[in-house]
């Protein structure tokens, strides 16, 4: 009994401590903060350090050379091409993803038999390891044994024994890379939009229907405006995932044909790791940062502005 009193006093004091916002807040946010500092902050600062040195894979602790790597990178035509490609791939795939995800989400918001199986199949690309899935796509776009070519030949759209050479032609290779990105990001955006759709109050849509609003009117004047904050989040995540991804390009084209599908992240890998030029690789990867920061701020502000309170 003598022991129980102090323990209960300590517990009660602790409870009071946790009830204080100034204590509980930082405590709850600490794991996330630690995670960001250790796994994002430290590598980011290390990348800044590397980008201003002549570090190589054989000699990662080298001399300070200022902005020389950045100047070298900007002068390179391969970098400029990769920068352009990064935007082309990200914007094209995100436009396609959002349109297709909206259609899918609308379809999935209705009840029908086998909906669970359809949902499972739609989610599969998201849960499959990207490198493994891309190897599957590598066969789909294979120069000789492409199943797409086989279908086109069977449909009479391609002469017998002819091939499209999907990964051998710059325009088709770009389409291939965008297709894989869309395939991969579609489930994520669909689930987010589906969640957004279910949160729209039913009575608003019912009221609109009673007032005589048709499907398209309800879609463009009620559903999409109410979904805009959710769509913004889907775009934000999709943009960041696509912008920073190198697995699709690495496995599918390795940046080819002749660097026409090279993106910043794959170029940073080839230059920095495979080529051994760590400083230049870090400089290339840092070009992603201001762009992503700008995109993130823009989308989050947009989301806040359109939020329905």
């Amino acid at each position: 009994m003598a022991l129980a009193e102090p323990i209960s006093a300590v517990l009660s004091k602790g409870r009071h401590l946790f009830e204080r916002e100034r204590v509980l807040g930082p405590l709850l946010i600490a794991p996330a903060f630690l995670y960001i500092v250790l796994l994002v902050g430290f590598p980011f600062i290390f990348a800044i350090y590397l980008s201003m040195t002549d570090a190589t894979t054989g000699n990662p602790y080298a001399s300070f050379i200022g902005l020389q790597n950045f100047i070298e990178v900007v002068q390179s035509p391969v970098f400029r091409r990769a920068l352009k490609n990064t935007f082309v791939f990200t914007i094209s795939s995100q436009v396609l993803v959002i349109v297709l995800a909206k259609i899918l989400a609308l379809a999935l918001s209705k009840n029908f038999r086998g909906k669970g199986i359809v949902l499972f199949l739609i989610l599969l690309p998201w849960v499959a390891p990207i490198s493994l899935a891309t190897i599957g796509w590598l066969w789909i776009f294979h120069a000789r044994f492409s199943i797409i070519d086989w279908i086109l030949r069977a449909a009479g759209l391609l002469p017998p024994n002819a091939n499209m050479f999907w990964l051998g032609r710059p325009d088709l290779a770009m389409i291939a890379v965008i297709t894989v990105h869309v395939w991969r990001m579609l489930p994520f955006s669909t689930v987010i939009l589906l969640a957004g759709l279910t949160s729209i109050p039913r009575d608003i849509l019912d009221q609109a229907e009673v007032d005589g609003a048709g499907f398209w009117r309800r879609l463009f004047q009620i559903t999409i405006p109410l979904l805009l904050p959710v769509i913004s989040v889907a775009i934000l995540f999709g943009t960041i995932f696509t912008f920073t991804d190198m697995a699709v390009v690495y496995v599918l084209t390795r940046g080819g044909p002749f660097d026409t599908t090279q993106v910043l992240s794959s170029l940073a890998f080839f230059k920095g790791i495979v080529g051994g030029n760590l400083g230049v690789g870090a400089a290339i990867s840092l070009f992603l940062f201001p762009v992503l920061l700008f995109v993130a701020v823009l989308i989050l502000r947009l989301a806040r502005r359109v939020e329905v309170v």
Partner: protein
Amino acid sequence: MKEKEEVRWVQVSEGKWRRLTRREFLKVVGVGAAAAGFGPFMFTEKTAAQPVRLRVLLWRHFVPPYDEWFDKVFAPRWGAKNGVQVVVEHVGLADLPAIAAAEASRVARGADPGHDLIQLLSPPAALEPQVDTDAHREVIEELVNNKKVGPYIPLARASTYNPVTKKYFGVSDNFVPDPIHYRADLWRRAAFRVTGPERVPSKGPVTWEHVRLAGRELKKLGNPVGLGLSQEIDTNMFLRALMYSWGTSEQDEGSNVIIDVPPYRQRTIDALKFVKALYEEAMFPGVFAWTAASNNEEFLAGRISIAMNAISITRTAQALAAEALKRGEDPDRSPAVQLARNTEITERAPAGPSGARGLEHVMGVYIIWKSGNRRVIDAAKQFLVDLILSYDPDVATRAGWGPGKFHASQAYDYPTFQNAISKAKRLAYLTNDPVSKAAGDRPDKLATIETAYEWAYNVGWPGPSNAAIDEVFNTFIIPVMFARVAQGIDTPERALDSAAAEMRRIYQKWRAQGLVGGRR
């Protein structure tokens, strides 16, 4: 009851036991815990006597029986004989440079690299600061001076020795000859169709011009030429072989960039124009999506008529033929046997205006990390020495790891220590090749690869395979230059200027690191 459970017993003399008090028990446990905590410091001698663990990383060989021999015969038996636990891991060849780069940074930090010995397939000159160059030199000296299996051929020395620092950044155990493979049946038909002032020999191409002329007809027959113009290793090798045969290169002997400097500039432009013509007349768009497996896939599928490759195409065709014969197929009618019989290799690399120069298909180079662990480094050195000595089937059989490296790789791995297996033994195998015979094929079909010692040059020839060449090679500057011209995106002059500017930036950087010579 609880008291009883806590009682422990101690033996005071034989057959006599007494109970241990709680205090005594805690003492015993405390001493035990302390001993466990300080164990690593108290029992260093015992720890030192534990077997060394040697972790080896290498590629998945294109001749699978080699991996079978390495993993199941050589490595475990060598380990048992030398008291070393050998752990072998295989990865795809394209993944090796990135893994080695990541491990190099761990070595630089003083951390465990993950592997102790890595076999790379192109000269890893950029890793020089993190590898044990003394260990490499000692392995080479042991093999050349004491074991007398040299010479260490010039191709290997140029691929592993840095003349600027005067250090060996690797030890090459093998090179893989890279002849032209052609379909003899299709070639004969195409050669017959080539008319006009220039004729083509019916027994396969001797020059690059023959490849173009016959290739034009082969493409019309539906079996185009398949030489990669993509960002992968085979393309890197093929285009350099072509450039060398045109008398041009990335650098000179002193590591100065010469690709765009007269008279090499015009030669490079001529080579670019030739490849454009070759693509337009004899190839197909699939060459821009070429991978390391495309040569084999396309040739064995009967789609292409010409490829530049190691003997793995022949070996795979022969393996398929041997299976067909085992199934009881008629050799004169079996498509697999016919394909094997019609798969031929050229005696030498095709000649260009400046001579017949080729490269190696891959350059096997082992590196030992500068980990500071003497026992592991010594084990790695001995492992390499014995692996190279095992080329000789008699040495390998005596040591218990027969049939040895040369036979296990089916003559794919060619020795860079030229007498690791004598010429007589090499030719004895190649002129009476058991793999060819099992496939119903000519038993001396591959005997001509022996000439590769005369025509195979290193990446970066006539200079050394240095760190700048390594980066130029791994970032595919040469394939991109040729591909852009072949597709008509750039003129030869523009593509060359762009590539040369990129190369100079790379050279400048590595010169500043003190790893590459030259000034221009």
